[in-house]
């Protein structure tokens, strides 16, 4: 990164780093409610990054995108998740399959992988925020890792949504956002998905008396 980088780019890079940091924090987090809050924070950082991009490029649809992120990822989804956690009486401890230090180590490796993979592409980017593509990929991979290592249904969903954040970051940083109609569609899908999942949680709890996904290992072939 050269020293002549405009302030907006520096800001976006900053927010991207914050998102990555938050992804690590989520990976390390043991409590469900804090996890949701971290997710909301990540959304906020994403929103701010988008906003900076919008201001610096003057593209109007990025404003909409930022607003959408704010409404959906920062307010609506965390609220729904909070409600679910309260209604379902989820135990606040999150149990991981592998212990957290090990997870973090794997996470570091993943970040290295992501940066390496994204490097050749970043160099092609004409946008001011090209470095963030690697971060976006790292966030996606970290979220993936979180889904693998966590045993609660609800943490898997948070991981899934965090992955979505990474994707949006990628979209913003690499291309200044997707076409509006697509972004709307994606947002709608995410929303509907979370609502369906919410319904699911209740059914799962009714059937299994728990939201622990280890109870859902009956369908197998071996």
């Amino acid at each position, binding site marked *: 990164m050269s020293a002549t980088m405009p302030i907006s780019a520096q800001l976006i890079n900053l927010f991207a780093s914050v998102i990555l940091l938050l992804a690590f924090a989520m990976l390390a987090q043991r409590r469900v409610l804090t996890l949701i809050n971290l997710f909301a924070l990540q959304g906020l950082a994403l929103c701010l990054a988008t906003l900076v991009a919008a201001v610096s490029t003057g593209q109007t649809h990025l404003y909409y995108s930022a607003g959408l992120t704010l409404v959906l990822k920062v307010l609506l989804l965390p609220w729904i998740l909070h409600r679910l956690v309260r209604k379902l009486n989820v135990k606040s401890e999150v149990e991981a399959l592998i212990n957290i230090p090990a997870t973090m180590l794997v996470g570091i490796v993943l970040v290295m992988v992501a940066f390496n*993979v994204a490097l050749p592409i970043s160099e092609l980017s004409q946008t001011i925020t090209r470095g963030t593509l690697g971060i976006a990929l790292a966030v996606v991979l970290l979220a*993936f890792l979180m889904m693998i290592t966590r045993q609660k249904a609800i943490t898997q969903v948070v991981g899934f949504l965090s992955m979505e954040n990474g994707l949006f970051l990628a979209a913003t940083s690499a291309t200044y956002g997707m076409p509006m109609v697509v972004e709307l569609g994606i947002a709608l899908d995410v929303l509907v998905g979370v609502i369906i999942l919410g319904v699911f949680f209740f059914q799962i709890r009714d059937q299994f008396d728990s939201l622990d996904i280890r109870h859902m290992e009956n369908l197998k072939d071996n």
Partner: protein
Amino acid sequence: MMPALLSIDVLLIAVCAWLAIGLAGLAAPRNLRFISKTLFPLGALVGALVGLSALLFLGGAAEVAVLAIGLPNLPFHLRLDNLTAVFALLVGFVSAGISVFAAGYFRKGEGTAPGLMCLQYHFFLASMLLVLMADDAYAFMVAWEGMALASFFLVTTDHKHAEIRRAGYLYLLIAHIGAISILLSFGVMTSGSGDYSFAGMRAQQLSPFWASAAYLLALVGFGAKAGLLPLHVWLPEAHPAAPSPVSAMMSGVMLKTAIYGLLRVSFDLVGDPLWWWGVVAMAVGLLTAVFGVLYSTVQSDMKRLLAYSSIENIGLLAVGLGLTLIFHAYRMEGLAALAMTAVLYHCLAHAGFKSLLFLCTGSVLHATKERSLGKLGGLIHRMPWVAWLALAGVIASAGLPPLSGFVSEWLLLQSFLFSPGLPHPWLNMVVPVAAAVVALVAALAGFAMVKFYGIVFLGQMREPALKEAHDAGPWERAGLVWLALITLLLGIFPATVISYIDAATRQLLGTGLADKVREHGWWMLAPISPERASYEPLIFLATIVVAVLFGRQLVHRLYHGRIRRTPAWDCGYVFQGPRAQDTAEGFSQPIRRIFEPMFRMERHFPTARDSQPYYSVKVEDHLWHWLYLPLARLMNAISVLMTRLQGGRIAIYLLYSFLTLIVLLLVARP
């Protein structure tokens, strides 16, 4: 003038007619009378027509047709040449007999509805004919698998028995594996040209390696259908399971389509053969023949006995084929023609006598409801027609003059005898030994046939219920007589028959026996010259018949013809019940003893303390335990390993996805 109807058109019409007859059966699936007394005789008529038109065609120039069906870039190519015609002759005439028999065979209330069976049966016939006519890989495969499918359904007609279902499964599975192998062979023969018509394959020049690959794949593929070792296991299971006309059709006719396929590939499609192909075929054939005949002697089920005997005959055919290949590879076309004639002749002969024997078992089965040799006996008294006609089949099957089986065996041995002179010392050594084995097989076949005939038809009835047995009905008799007639005619007019089927040999090898044979008149078979070898079955038969009649007249004239009936003498023993006779197991005891390592036996001997002493012996196939079961276990083990992938844990599933992604990101580069 009307444009003349080509023979290929006649055959095509026959295919359609068979299909139509089959579908007509579906129109009234439960009307047994209509189906058996109208449709099956019609099918027989079509069969006779097929045989006749093939006979008339023989010697003619190849006819081709391209149908509007098939794949977009590969429509059905059909071709009628002399090789096809010889086998079409076989299919037509033999199926005619079997269909006539079937008209009287099927009864009410047995397994599949008669209409459905009629469909399957005629579909089977049509697909066999189509196999012979197919001139591209797709048409061939469609017909080939259609044939397997139809026969599979026929085999499982009586599917409420678990072992019949198992037999059907094994059959279709091996047939399918064979089909895969055949397809691969075709693929190799196109050698990447993408032209899957047979004409395209002929045009290819394969390197020896790929030609060998194609040949070996074909050997495996067609061998699976024919019942060559070690892919024979389906045969002794499927034949007893099927209704007898179907067994007859499968054993007599269907197995020959595999021989046809081998001939087609080895001599027509693949190009110039290598000498060791013949050695491979011969070795496999010898093993198969010895195995088949030994196992046929120890069977206790009459249809299994015949099924193993079919394996033996297929083995002999493979030996003949191998010999032909060897001669052909060394450009000794005259001898190759002799061996190939033996093969073709044996195809015809075996088709006749083996279907005859299977149909006889069908009649016996109907009359007694019994397949086990241990519960039959003395049926010659109740079923004279069947018994005397079966005798013809037995003599032919034992390879004895003057019936059909002997002619082909004779030709085969002749070609063995003239094999020295091969430019390969090892072969010169090995071939006579092979001839010795063939001789042993032929002799053992006699043993098996005596056992079959003696225990089923002769002696005292082993069960009281056999007294109720009735002879075959008129339709069944007609079918049997027809096939016995084929066996007889093939036996006593070999020169005539050879002068017909020679066209196929000539087509494949460029030379034939017909000229030599025709030099000596129709009664004499002298494929090379009378000084070398000759055989006059008609005079042979006539001499024996004259001797018998003359001797009888003479004895009656000079002495008398008085007969007194008394109980049997038997060295004065009193206890002469049916159980004093040899059982099926007892009869084959010498074989089991001499060839003990060949069998996997489970025996139970009675001890002094048994309250109900009994003896039992169960003979099993080594290959099951050496090949098939380990293979099944291996497959199962792989499956068990594989299914660990699906352990039920979502985190692991996600991990798979994750790792796939990571690996691809790191590794995949254009």
